[in-house]
């Protein structure tokens, strides 16, 4: 019992220890965990350590869909643990390895269970329903606590003055012990959570008792405190130490969850003149990623171009992803392809939604300003705010009645939505002034999304009205999924005598990985040095921040995640 079994399920928390918007700090075999529940009810059991710079995630913020680290604001999605936002670089892709270390987690019988490398699909012990008693951390090893339970006596009705006889003890598993009060109707089930070598969390559930719950709880709290005092008095407390083996070594070797997933178009709707909406479902059994309001995903259009689309979903919509697509008249083919070539049943490749346009918790009332197709992320935000009971305003600027999209969703939001139809530039300016000026300052935050000129108007009008730049947030529909620019070139591997091409749209690192060549990588942004590769010959184009000037000039090495060759043949020492 005292040795960690990576295949076994252990109780790590009670269900009530993970209320919404809280991060519970837990411990198992000396390892610390951040346990948190998203707004949909799913629980996460993660190593209590941000993979960026090691800050405990229990200091972070549970936004309801993500855990945000307190150090640099990196956010990790519920479920997969994938990093969805690096605030220092809103325009760059997050490192694919940046992922919170997640254990398998299930919730059962009022407990949250976790396993490093589960041998079974769920814990097999059945605890049954009962009254939750207070859990108690005890500064002793689990074997000592288990032995002491043999002498635990309690009254079935919770009477403190009674002199109870010994209870009948039955071991359900090495960690779960059941005590039956004389008569057998009332049963007390103890679960021992081995928090550390010299610490055990003792959980207890009382079944079959009919007395007043508070009295029962106090009765057992008193007795468990006495049990603890007796156990702790015999030996001095042993201070906690950091475990010697890093947690990732205990988990099965697996690649970080892929950001890419396939989805199938469930339905396609004409929302308005020039705008369609698509409802996407997962193409396989994998659950869809959890979405934050304002998030977007990258979709590969049938024409092969990659485009960003904001997700329209309200917080309760977890089974499908809804996006809106406007046919752009000067499209290079992306939106045209989506309009013309996508129908029900079409399979599309998508990537995990990123959250570069988040709703920032601030206590200030959000004013959402949407221009045209910019309604999509703001609609998601509005629905989230409505679900939270938070007041907001949504101003939707469109060229005319026939261009209004997502009418049913807007109707649900009622008075919070104001439509501004068919305004020219001057009228828009006036309307924006009406919306943004004359308000008590410091109490509002503006979120705006739409065409560039409109956003510029919002920016200048907000500034003129005294709204601080900090309180105006923009989503520019940039396409930062643009592939890495650069000429195509050929790679020759000196040691293995292989040769392959690296096209313009692909990094050298991606090409090497595609060829099955194991080059280690971490940041994928040219800064950490992990993918350092030796070069035999080739005209190099360095884009990294790691190599010194001398190293770059030597032509003997490069960082394949960001650097390339200027055409021709690049010979690597691989």
């Amino acid at each position, binding site marked *: 019992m005292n040795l960690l079994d990576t295949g076994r399920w252990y109780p790590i928390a009670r269900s009530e220890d993970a209320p919404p918007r809280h991060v519970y700090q837990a411990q198992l075999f000396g390892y*610390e965990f951040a346990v948190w529940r998203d707004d949909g009810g799913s629980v996460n059991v993660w190593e*209590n*350590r941000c*993979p*960026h*710079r*090691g*800050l*405990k995630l229990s*200091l972070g913020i549970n936004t309801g869909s993500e855990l945000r680290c*307190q*150090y*640099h*604001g990196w956010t990790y999605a519920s479920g997969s643990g994938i990093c969805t936002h*690096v*605030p*220092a*670089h*809103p325009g*760059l892709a997050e*490192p694919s*390895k*940046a992922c919170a270390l997640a254990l398998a987690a299930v919730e059962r019988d009022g407990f949250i269970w976790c396993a490093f490398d589960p041998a079974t699909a769920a814990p097999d012990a059945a605890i049954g329903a009962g009254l939750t008693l207070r859990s108690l951390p005890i500064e002793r090893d689990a074997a000592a606590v288990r032995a002491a339970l043999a002498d635990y006596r309690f009254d079935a009705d919770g009477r403190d003055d009674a002199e109870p006889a010994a209870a009948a003890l039955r071991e359900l598993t090495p960690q779960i012990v059941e005590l039956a009060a004389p008569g057998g109707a009332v049963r007390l089930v103890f679960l021992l959570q081995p928090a550390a070598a010299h610490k055990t969390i003792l959980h207890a559930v009382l079944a079959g008792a009919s007395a007043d719950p508070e009295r029962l709880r106090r009765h057992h709290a008193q007795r468990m405190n006495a049990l603890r005092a007796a156990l702790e008095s015999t030996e001095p407390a042993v201070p906690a130490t*950091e475990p*010697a*083996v*890093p947690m990732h*070594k205990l988990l099965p070797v697996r690649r970080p969850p892929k950001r890419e997933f396939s989805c199938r178009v469930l339905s396609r709707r004409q929302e308005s003149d020039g705008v369609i909406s698509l409802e996407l479902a997962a193409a396989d059994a994998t659950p869809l990623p959890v979405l934050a309001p304002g998030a977007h995903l990258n979709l590969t259009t049938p024409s092969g171009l990659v485009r960003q689309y904001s997700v329209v979903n309200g917080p309760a919509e977890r089974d499908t992803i809804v996006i809106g697509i406007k046919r752009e008249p000067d499209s290079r083919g992306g939106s045209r392809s989506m309009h013309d070539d996508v129908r029900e049943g079409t399979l599309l490749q998508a990537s995990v939604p990123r959250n570069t346009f988040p709703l*920032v918790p601030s206590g200030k009332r959000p004013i959402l300003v949407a221009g045209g197709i910019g309604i999509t992320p703001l609609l998601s935000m509005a629905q989230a705010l409505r679900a939270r009971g938070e007041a907001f305003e949504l101003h939707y600027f469109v060229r005319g009645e026939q261009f209004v999209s997502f009418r049913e969703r807007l109707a649900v939001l009622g008075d919070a939505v104001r439509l501004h139809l068919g305004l020219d530039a001057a009228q828009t300016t006036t309307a924006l002034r009406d919306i943004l000026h004359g308000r008590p300052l410091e109490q509002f935050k503006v979120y705006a999304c739409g065409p560039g000129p409109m956003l510029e108007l919002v920016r200048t009008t907000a500034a003129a009205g005294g709204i601080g*730049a*900090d309180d*105006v*947030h923009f989503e520019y529909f940039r396409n930062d999924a643009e592939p890495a620019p650069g000429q195509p070139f050929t790679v020759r591997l000196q040691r293995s005598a292989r040769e392959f091409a690296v096209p313009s749209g692909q990094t050298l690192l991606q090409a090497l990985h595609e060829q099955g060549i194991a080059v*280690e990588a*971490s*940041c994928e*942004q*040219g*800064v*950490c*040095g*992990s993918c350092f590769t030796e070069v035999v010959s080739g005209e190099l184009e360095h884009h990294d*921040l*790691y190599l*010194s*000037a001398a190293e770059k000039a030597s032509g003997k090495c490069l960082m394949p995640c960001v650097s390339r060759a200027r055409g021709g043949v690049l010979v690597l020492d691989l």
Partner: protein
Amino acid sequence: MRVDEMLWRDWHAVAIVADLAAGRRYRTTVLGVPVTYWCDGDGLHALREDSDTGPCRIAERYATAWICLSDAPLDFFAIPEFDEPDRRVVGAGSIRLHVSGLRAVENFLDMGHFPYVHTGYLGAEPHTEVLPYDVAIDANNEILATNCRFVQPRASAIAADPIEVNYTYRVARPFVTMLYKTCVPAPDRRDVIGLFIQPLSEEWCVAHTVMIYLDDVNSDEELRRFQQTIFGQDLMILINQVPKRMPLEARHEIPVRADAMSSAYRRWLRENRIAYGTWQPEAVEA
């Protein structure tokens, strides 16, 4: 160079001289070695209190007392601004932390945390972007990060309006780092903040902060209060990093472009064979 040779030969800060009471004996450790030091009419004195008991080197530089445990001490690093006659030199106190001093240095070099840890002081959402900056190792084997820019609501005790500040970071020794920042009263010169970390042990350190400023408006207390607030905000973060010793490999802690300076620092530590205060998981598993 042997492992940690640079550290054993280096000078380590133990106190801000102005905070020392004359005649009083102070006990501390440097790299785990217990030492006693004091100041009197003849200056600073120090003794080793381990098996090599005896006098050990102590010197005053930059308003700080430094101890060296070696008979072949390194030369001191240079801070020319210290000698400029119109400079004010203000110590902001010495605070002890339960974390490897290397992490304290790295935190000092980082801007990405400004909007989250120093909210309203050194940064605020949505201005979270860290723009590209330049990192190089100079001829003195020191690391310099230049052209570091960030939008700050309250860049210092002096600044009233938000400004885009321009920073230069410098790492002179493993535990010695300095920040050169935009100086509001004299835009062509820079204020200097020195963070001199004393490695008590591999997992404990003391942060000694010395400001070398041009300001002639704020009192010493006001300058210190600002620095202490900033440091107090970092403190809770630093003591909650795991592991307490700093990993040098990018496998364990993943950087992004904003971490170019910290990546250069970790690489520089590896190349200068610094192991003290670093996390070595492979060794533990042997």
